[in-house]
């Protein structure tokens, strides 16, 4: 009888950390969330010679990263090279340090493996991600446009830069009402009729009214929430163009100044690696959580090699996600199923649509679907106790 080696495989969580104190502290915060929820081993891969502070953990795999790489590059080098650094014969779940285990079924992630490798989807699509992966001018140009426009906006609507939470919530609620009306032609029509037939005070809802003479949206108690702004005038002063039908301002490239999306990443992938991306706005994968095994070797080796190639290329930012896209398309895995959001719920501080349900049991970025995440991926503001999502995740501990 041959040896059927199907039961000896171990399920193992893997973190990579290298260099900066901030990352090591993040790992030290995240680790107890996992330890509390699993009996599976948790390994940390690191280069101790680079660490600003020792990693406190029982299972550390210490690997010397070539000196030519800075710490950021070193951590990517370790992450994309895990298939060569870890023992064969196991199933691994890689996790970024800013991921917290907050559910009760964490270990079920190992059952989600589909060979040759499995990632989760990112929270944006490829075009939006593009300027964060390559050094095109889209991001700095649009950032400069936005700064100009925001300064003018603040002149017309002094409340636009507010950090007061109550007021921010009111403004967000008002924006949501606007969005709901815009999405329904009948509502647009009926709201317009009501607006033009009303007196000085136009009641939008019970909570909000518009003071036509002062040109300000107010709460029901009369508190100003948002001043009406003249976008056409702002665009003109900023040297940009206003598109009335979209109520949007576009830059000299003809694209909305609020959106940084571009095709440059797809172009860079094609130019550098001769890999055509069939869908320029493909839903790319997020590198924060992924499952891999021996079967992932070809994939990971290619990812690793492509990533090292871009380290010294000034066209590329030091990230592994652009080369992840290149690898996926080169190996024809663009339809390979991604992990459900349960396994990598990306909580981006900058996202306006991110909110908890009333009972604070689930979270959403799309009001149709509330998620009970097992793993939450904290994008920016890790540890920000003014952020309700952070506090919610922290309390799951």
């Amino acid at each position, binding site marked *: *009888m*041959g040896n*059927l080696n*199907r*039961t000896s495989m171990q399920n193992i969580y893997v973190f990579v950390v290298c260099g900066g104190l901030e990352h090591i502290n993040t790992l030290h915060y995240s680790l107890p969330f996992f330890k509390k929820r699993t009996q599976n081993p948790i390994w940390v891969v690191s280069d101790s010679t680079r660490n600003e502070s020792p990693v406190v953990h029982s299972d550390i795999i210490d690997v010397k990263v070539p000196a030519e790489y800075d710490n950021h590059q070193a951590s990517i080098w370790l992450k994309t090279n895990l298939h060569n650094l870890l023992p064969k014969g196991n199933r691994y779940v890689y996790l970024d340090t800013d991921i917290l285990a907050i559910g009760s079924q964490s270990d079920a992630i190992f059952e989600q493996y*589909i*060979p*040759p490798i499995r990632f989760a*989807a990112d929270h944006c*699509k490829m075009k939006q991600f593009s300027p964060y992966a390559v050094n095109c001018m889209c991001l700095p140009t649009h950032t400069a446009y936005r700064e100009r426009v925001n300064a003018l906006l603040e002149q017309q609507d002094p409340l636009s830069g507010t950090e007061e939470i109550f007021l921010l919530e009111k403004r967000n609620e008002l924006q949501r009402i606007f969005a709901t009306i815009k999405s329904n032609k009948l509502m647009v029509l009926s709201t317009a009729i009501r607006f033009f037939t009303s007196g000085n005070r136009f009641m939008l809802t019970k909570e909000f009214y518009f003071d036509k003479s002062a040109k300000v949206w107010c709460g029901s108690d009369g508190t100003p929430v948002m001043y009406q702004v003249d976008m056409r005038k702002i665009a003109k002063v900023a040297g940009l163009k206003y598109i009335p039908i979209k109520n949007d301002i576009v830059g000299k490239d003809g694209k909305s100044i609020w959106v940084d999306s571009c095709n440059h990443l797809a172009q860079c992938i094609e130019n550098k690696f001769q*890999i*055509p991306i*069939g*869908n320029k*706005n*493909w*839903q790319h994968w997020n590198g924060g959580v992924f499952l891999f095994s021996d*079967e992932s070797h*070809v*994939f990971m080796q*290619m990812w690793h090699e492509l990533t090292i190639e871009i380290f010294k290329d000034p066209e590329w930012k030091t990230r592994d996600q652009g080369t992840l896209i290149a690898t996926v*398309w*080169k*190996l*024809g*895995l*663009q*339809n*390979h*199923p*991604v992990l*459900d*959001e349960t396994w990598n719920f990306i909580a981006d501080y900058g996202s306006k649509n991110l909110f908890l349900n009333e009972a604070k049991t689930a979270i959403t970025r799309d009001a*149709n679907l509330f998620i009970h995440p097992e793993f939450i991926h904290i994008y920016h503001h890790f540890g920000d106790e003014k952020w309700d999502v952070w506090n919610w995740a922290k309390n799951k501990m």
Partner: protein
Amino acid sequence: MCGIAGYIDLAKNVDSTTLIGMRDTLTHRGPDAAGVYISDDRNVGLAHRRLSFIDLSDAGIQPMVSANGRYIVSFNGEIYNFKQLREALERDGYVFQSQTDTEVLLHGYDAWKEQLPKYLKGMFAFAIYDDSEKILFLARDRFGIKPLFYGHSSTCFAFASELKAIFSLPFFPKKIKKESVGKFLANRYVPTPNTMWENVYKLPPAHWMKIKTDTLQIEEKRYWQLVVSAKNERKDAAEIISQKLTKSLEEHLLSDVPIGAFLSGGMDSSALTVLMKQLAYEPLDFFSIGFSGWNESEHEYAKLVADKLHANLHTLLLDKISIETVETLMYYYDDPIADISILPTYAVSGIASKKVKAVVSGEGADESFGGYWWQKPASFYFSSAFHRIKSRVFGKSFAEIKKHYIQAMSMGLFDKEELGRAFTADWQDAVSDDPFAHFDRFEQKGSSTLKQIQFLDIHTFMSELILTKVDRASMAHSLEVRVPFLDHELVEFLFGLPDDSYFDEHIQKREIRKLLQGHVPAIIYERKKQGFVGPDKFYMDMEVYNMLLVGNLIKDGVIRKEYVVDLLAEKDHWRLWKLFVLENWWKIWVKGGESK
């Protein structure tokens, strides 16, 4: 076992990384080893993922190249008569380097060329490249147990065990075939040779195909046909059936690793387990699925059989449909099917794969022995007494049989009118005049009604739905399922018997019952047949189907929203189930993850 793939590219050289990528989309079919071959002129690439059973050494690694370098094979399946064929080839002077059935294909093709498939006994799909003649030869087994897809453009030809490998090729054109979407809803599968995509096909069972690799000229031919007759003697039928089945099972148990069995607690799987016991096969590991909170759950019957045979029974209880599972399943069922038993089959394959690499299973018994309710004359529906009397006197016409069969197969009928209501104006091309036209290809003039329905079952229901279901669900877990009832000599024998020598309207699968009597509790063969599906309530959860309202089929203007709203209001769960499966398939294969 295994996943095979490959492509011919006349426009540019075959690229090894692209070929490896293509191959590794099939890793689940063969996690044990992998290989690729690229021809010297770089026009042809073959790839293979291996799940190994026989000759676990490196000698079995594929693609396998003949000693003279002329033939290269990539093979998925099992050849049960490979030892006899090897002996014959050795007598003719062929020298073998390994103990594998794969090598028999290499020498066999050299000796017999396109006659090779008809000498093979087993389940298979393979590709052989003849580097001297510049010919790629593809073949698929008689019943379609193992899958084989192919597609072509003006400069490229690609083939694979699963569609995902073909669509991994970045230059391969991908265009949905609207008519196939309609036929999928009508039949729960896309009838062979078509798939959901333009210019991509299934090689029909019992067919081979030759492709000239320098011109992409294609020749396709059927090499075997099931013959319906009543020429076999009935007096020894029972004994011959028993002998043939036992021999088939013996051949199916041949392996260098242990083999288990799916045991539903029904007659067919129980018969196989009884025979395994009689063959003194050890260890006896059986796998069963139950449904919690359901009185009719079969796992209790499976336990009765396992206890009686002193076997190890591994059982999993299911309690609900998981949306996530259906989405995952549609990745594996890239050629989609909407059979409701995909969920339990996937689940039972999961538990089996933790313990063994292969199992035997009872597929094919109902088709061959007449075990389905719709095969019984009493099940026929007639629109009037006149038609009933006419059919008694003159027999049933094929049109009547087809009408009955469509009803039996439908599970939420999508006929031309219903499809017209479901699709939007832009998608009316998806509505064909007769979504069930493929049944006409299997008309057997002069055969009995029972044989005609059995013939339809073998060529459509079983080949398109049952075998596809089992292959993809099991391969998703790197588990091989072997089907001893589908020994073609056994099936040929049964189709050559008079109906009454193996079929009795009042005694369920009489010949299998005989095998069971005295070996398992009588309740196993005396109770009513039950499908491997679980309770209907599993498929009646309207909350699950609500996702259709915000899904891509409506967003992309394929299905009318009002139609879905009506189905939800009417709680029309079978039609909703088909749409739900299509929605999940669409999300992965049309949208490519965009909706995440």
